[in-house]
């Protein structure tokens, strides 16, 4: 099921996110790998689950293989594809492979720089950027590759993109968002943002684009994680109030506190958007209570 069809029907869309394991996931009849189990645990509460692509430039099981496993388990995957590790031939080939293997949704990303990951001496690719990738993917959907050669069969993929509402200057990020839409982006998931005022400012400016936007909610698990994000994760700022709230409870109460904060943020942002994208970093069990509450 394509997310675009849900948006077209006016459905308020929920999505989760899982990260493939660092290793082979051949189970030989055993229990499904952890990331599939995590996807299954939220199956009834989300419409689809993002499958990350060497997230944070850390080498893992391929996002396409992992997406297919998620799909086989009965959960709709959103295959994330980045420009960091593939040139234009590999990107197009991978998109056609994804469609061939039954993937309906892709999220087209530039990708974190290799310098931030676990293979810092690798050669970064970045042959094309995310805007160009969207145009390429749109072309494949229309039955031609990026140099105009016809495909035996076009792809049929819903094309997602990301935008960072917390970016300064915001207008520069909006310019890029507009370009992404012009080149083929059909829906957006936002980077994590915790300040409703910043988010509202962004939404007011982005509304004109008339494209579905999903609020990106990264669950902050502890003050230590907040500090790590603020020091090491570019483009995201965890505000002081959120850190103070997490600090106000003992470590064993943090999960409940994280749920309370996430629920509050989800409720606050929901009226402004067409969906919520949860980035729970393993705490997917926080998603059902939030979705239940929002669905009433």
């Amino acid at each position, binding site marked *: 099921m394509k997310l675009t069809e849900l948006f077209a029907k006016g459905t308020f869309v929920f999505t989760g996110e899982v990260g493939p394991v660092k290793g082979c996931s051949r189970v030989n009849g055993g229990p499904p790998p952890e990331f599939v189990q995590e996807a299954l645990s939220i199956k009834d509460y989300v419409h689809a689950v993002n499958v990350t692509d060497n997230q944070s430039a850390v080498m893992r099981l391929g996002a396409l293989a992992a997406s297919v496993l998620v799909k086989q388990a009965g959960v709709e995957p959103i295959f994330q594809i980045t420009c960091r590790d593939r040139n234009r031939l590999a990107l197009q080939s991978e998109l056609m492979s994804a469609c061939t293997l039954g993937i309906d949704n892709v999220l087209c990303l530039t*990708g974190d720089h290799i310098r931030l990951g676990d293979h810092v001496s690798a050669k970064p690719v970045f042959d094309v950027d995310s805007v160009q990738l969207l145009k390429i993917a749109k072309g494949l959907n229309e039955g031609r590759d990026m140099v105009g050669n016809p495909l035996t069969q076009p792809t049929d993929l819903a094309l997602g993109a990301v935008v960072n509402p917390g970016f300064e200057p915001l207008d520069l990020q909006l*310019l*890029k968002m507009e370009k992404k839409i*012009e080149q083929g982006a059909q829906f957006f998931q936002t980077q994590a943002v915790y300040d409703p005022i910043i988010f509202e400012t962004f939404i007011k400016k982005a509304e004109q684009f008339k494209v579905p936007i999903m609020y990106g909610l990264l669950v902050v698990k502890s003050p230590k994680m907040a500090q790590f994000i603020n020091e090491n994760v570019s483009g995201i700022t965890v505000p002081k109030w959120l850190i103070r709230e997490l600090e106000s409870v003992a470590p064993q109460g943090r999960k409940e506190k994280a749920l309370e904060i996430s629920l509050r943020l989800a409720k606050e942002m929901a009226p402004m958007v067409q969906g919520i994208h949860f980035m729970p970093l393993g705490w997917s069990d926080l998603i059902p209570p939030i979705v239940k509450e929002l669905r009433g």
Partner: protein
Amino acid sequence: MIGTTKKPLEEVLAALAPYRKVAVVGCDGCAKICQTGGVDEVAQLARTLEAHGKEIVFEATPERTCNVAKSDPILKPLTDKIQEADALLVLGCGGAVQITRYLTEQYGLTKPVKVGLNSVGHLDTVVPGAVAMEECSDCGECVLNDTGGICPVTRCAKSLLNGPCGGAEGGKCEVDHNRDCAWILIYERLKALGETDKLKRFMEPKDFSKMAKPRTLYIKEGRVAS
């Protein structure tokens, strides 16, 4: 210019280990600016090599060793000396090394030509004698007309052509928090010029065939072939 840094002495000595009589060729162009291979550095290294038991056959420092027109008039008269040397050590960029090798072959000589420097690439002097920065990637398809004279191919860590990634914070790049985000610089510059409309234009994927190696420049025709 081509930026260069000095190789560690141990590495230079290891490369020269089999040879006793060494000729040292510097470069009074880029390597002089980088303080790695001008007349002074050539003399300095020659003395150090002597202290390590080498016999220095000659020291020469063409104005631009990578340029045959500059290096041939200096090296050709030294053909006999080159013949006498067991090896040549070049304090220049990799281009200077290869042009030196090319010339020795032109003189009918087969001599080991070693490099004493590491080439960093096309750099531009920002603070003379102190800082040089990479501002151009020699991509063969210049976009500076549309980007306020700031190159995203070089100065954006991801070489993005259609605007910034989402990773910049406080105007700094996600890869290096001491480095400005190239796209924010471009945005500010275009804003000051009243040309932010240029940012709306979609930039097509780059034609990297213009960077296919090795490139050859036919100077008279102004033509690049690969």
